[in-house]
């Protein structure tokens, strides 16, 4: 009897197993995965739409999240901190599930971001952080980046290596995280190199025309200037124009999201070197952290994650065809 029972059981098991393998087994994590995203809203407040970084992040977020049924709600403050603050304030009452913020400076939004977390919204900051840390920050480690850039200029320009030791810095907006933290990194490294001489350190407000005027004055004041560190490739097209007009041989190290225009600029000699934080990569990081937050369902503000974007130092020599990316063409 016992033998028959066992045999029956075994055959039943075998049957069910074979039935299962014919129809496939459902992945038990699928349903909760998709359920956790259905009908969620991600609000995105960059400093402005309409340039490579913010458009790239928006495109990346849409590509990753929209197929899951997440709605992306873009509020464009168009370079106005006031409008951005208003957008965040009204979003706090509208209560999206996630708020993605790109800070124009380190202080303006700090209190609002705290309020948003209190209201139960996950807050993800991208690339330029606020002094207030939220659920997640995705972006370049600007302090390290500044240090590395300073080191590159030392390699190129130090009197030990045959340079004049004279360098200049052209910042963006002084209070922006990208400027303030980076300058910290640059100063830290330069402190240990008294042979280097920072002859000019000016802010050009992310504007190419201002950058050009500043660079032109500095260049003609210091005919033996060896290197310039600019804080954004879109702005440094002006710095590069000033260098070209002066006819001097200056090493221009710029930085940006790695849009195709950066590679074009390296190719035609506009920039000597561009430090790239890969924008599609940052968008993917953001999308992933948003997915994680929505699945964990923890209280907003209970954990703080920082994901520093890997940096790539591109030059004409090490640049490859796929080093830069392009935005999808608009209609």
């Amino acid at each position, binding site marked *: 009897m016992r033998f028959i029972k066992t045999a029956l059981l075994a055959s039943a098991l075998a049957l069910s197993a074979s039935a299962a393998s014919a129809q496939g087994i459902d992945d038990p994590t699928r349903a909760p995965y998709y359920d956790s995203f259905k009908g969620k809203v991600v609000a995105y407040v960059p400093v402005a739409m309409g340039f490579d970084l913010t458009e790239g992040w928006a495109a990346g977020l849409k590509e990753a999240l929209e197929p899951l049924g997440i709605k992306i709600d873009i509020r464009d403050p168009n370079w106005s901190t006031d409008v951005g603050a208003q957008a965040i304030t009204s979003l706090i009452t509208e209560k999206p599930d996630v708020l993605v913020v790109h800070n124009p400076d380190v202080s303006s939004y700090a209190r609002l971001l705290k309020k948003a977390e209190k209201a139960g919204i996950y807050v993800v900051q991208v690339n330029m952080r606020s002094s207030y840390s939220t659920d997640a920050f995705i972006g370049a480690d600007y302090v390290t980046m500044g240090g590395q850039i300073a080191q590159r200029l030392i390699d190129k320009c130090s009197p030990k290596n045959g340079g004049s030791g004279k360098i200049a810095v052209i910042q963006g907006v*002084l209070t922006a995280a990208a400027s303030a933290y980076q300058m910290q990194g640059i100063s830290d490294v330069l402190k240990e190199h008294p042979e280097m001489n920072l*002859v000019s350190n*000016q802010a050009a407000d992310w*504007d190419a025309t201002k950058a050009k*005027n*500043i660079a*032109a*004055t500095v260049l003609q004041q210091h005919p033996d200037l060896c290197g310039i560190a600019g804080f954004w490739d*879109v702005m440094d097209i002006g710095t590069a124009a000033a260098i070209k007009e002066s006819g001097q041989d200056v090493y221009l190290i710029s930085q940006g999201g790695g849009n195709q225009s950066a590679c074009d600029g390296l190719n035609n000699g506009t920039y000597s070197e561009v430090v790239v934080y890969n924008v599609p990569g940052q968008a993917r990081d953001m999308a992933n952290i948003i997915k994680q937050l929505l699945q964990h369902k923890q209280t907003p503000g209970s954990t703080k994650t920082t994901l520093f974007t890997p940096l790539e130092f591109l030059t004409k020599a090490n640049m490859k065809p796929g080093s830069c990316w392009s935005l999808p063409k608009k209609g």
Partner: protein
Amino acid sequence: MKFFGRVSQEQIVFGLAALLCIGFAITLQGFLTPNNILNLIRSVSILGILGVAMGLVVIGRGIDLSLVSVMAISIAWTLQLATDGMSLPLALALGLTFALIVGMTNGFLIAYIEIPPIFATLAMGTLIYGFGRYFFFGLDVMYMPDDAHILTWFGQGVLFGVPVPIFLFAGVCFGAFLFLRYTKYGRYLRAVGDNQLAARITGVPTRPIVVLQYMLSSLIGFIAGIVTAASVSSMNTRVANSTFIYDVILVVVLGGIGLSGGRGGIRNVIVGTLLIGVLLNGMTIMDIQYTVQNVIKGVILLTAIVIDTILNPRDEQTAQQGDI
């Protein structure tokens, strides 16, 4: 204050600029070199060209707040068209047409519908910025396409050792000077600015003159746009939203063109532009921090205005309706 006689604001500002120049020349090594002076003028030539456009409008007792938007959007559209494969001359022609249409609309709204210029052009500036961003191009910054590099000569070229933008600035100044001084319409413009009703009674076609004045401003704005785009190989449409337009008005008013119209000339624009240029250049050489630069700039500008108010007090005769 009799001691000074009647010193005009233009002379005061020129004096301030000269004083600063002497101060910088003594204290700053490398300020008074030919290269630096050329560089100084080059750096403010775009501001100066826009100042001439604004000056013409202000002399005609108007104001054009859409000037910077016209410059940015018409040129950005030109670059976009050229990037999309249109031939450069055609793209430039279309951009210019766009600028002129905007100027004409401004003039029409102000002259015929009689909307105050400050409101008409303020609204127009916002309108065309949004219109351009929505219909013409998606990105903030338009780059100069590779095959348009002939154009960069206007911004980066050098002629007889002098940067081309300086020649363009001088050319625009000279053209505007000739227009104001020697043409019938130039004199009409001044007459309309001084007293529109009187001008009309004497037979000046006041409304068409107002339209002309805004079209001229758009035209010069377009030229300034070419120089801007050419000098940095790109056009940043964000300037339309910046405070740049106030710098332009400042240059005009600082130079001594009264906002009440009818007064001043191109020389005033040049003087105002030079003061700003000397200030910016000197402060950049001294490597003064940006925020401190703003403080210094503001103080010096206020000083100029205060001196003017003391030396040339306003009275019933000099004050006019429409003074701001």
